[in-house]
């Protein structure tokens, strides 16, 4: 089981703040591709050049490995400060 979170514009366009996925994807990149199958908006806004990924609250690249119980967040480039 992987917990997936979405923030900011991504949360709004996908109309989804979080979901749980029973999946055997083994990396953040594979998870990203699996989620992109969920619809046109998912395909557009989860693209690697549009959505950053954090694994267990740390920014990671798409080759980061996943295990059950992990929390993955996808979000646009940050704009605080």
């Amino acid at each position, binding site marked *: 089981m992987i917990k997936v979170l979405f*923030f900011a*514009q991504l949360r709004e366009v996908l109309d989804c703040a979080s979901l749980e996925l029973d999946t055997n994807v083994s990396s953040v990149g594979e998870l990203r591709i699996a989620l992109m199958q969920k619809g046109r908006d998912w395909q557009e806004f989860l693209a690697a050049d549009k959505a950053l990924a*954090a694994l267990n*609250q*740390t*920014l990671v690249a798409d080759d980061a490995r996943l295990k059950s119980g992990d929390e993955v967040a996808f979000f646009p*480039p*940050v704009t*605080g*400060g």
Partner: protein
Amino acid sequence: MFTVAKLQEQDHIAVQNQDFDLALEYQALTEANQSDGAVVHFVGLVRNNNLGRQIQALELEHYPAMTTKALTELVAEARQRWQLGRIRLIHRVGKLSLGEQIVFVGVTSTHRGSAFAACEFLMDQLKTRAPFWKKEYTSEGAHWVAARDSDRVKAGEW
């Protein structure tokens, strides 16, 4: 693979809805601290114009479980690079009106060069690595602010 950065006792990190008081922050940085001759503050405020749009208010969203962790890592990195006294970092979230304070970074050091560098480093890194997002409210509606290339460049220069 990951080591968890820890905050030193003299440091302070907060993510909060409520406003902060610069005078109290300055006091916390300087009181009973006679070894640091240099204090550098940065305050970010809601300005009325961004890329030609008239701003009425901002809304700041964040990723609560990650924010403090990310800021703590930035503070730890700053401490590895420079000899610093105290560090205080506050970022507000929620809805903010024109002119309101958004972010505070305060750094003390024995010498000014380290204090200036660390304060600017923390702001530049925060802008690209801490999970905050701004939504602008203008007379033409609301929209999410796009990340700036210039911020990515600045953060990469350290």
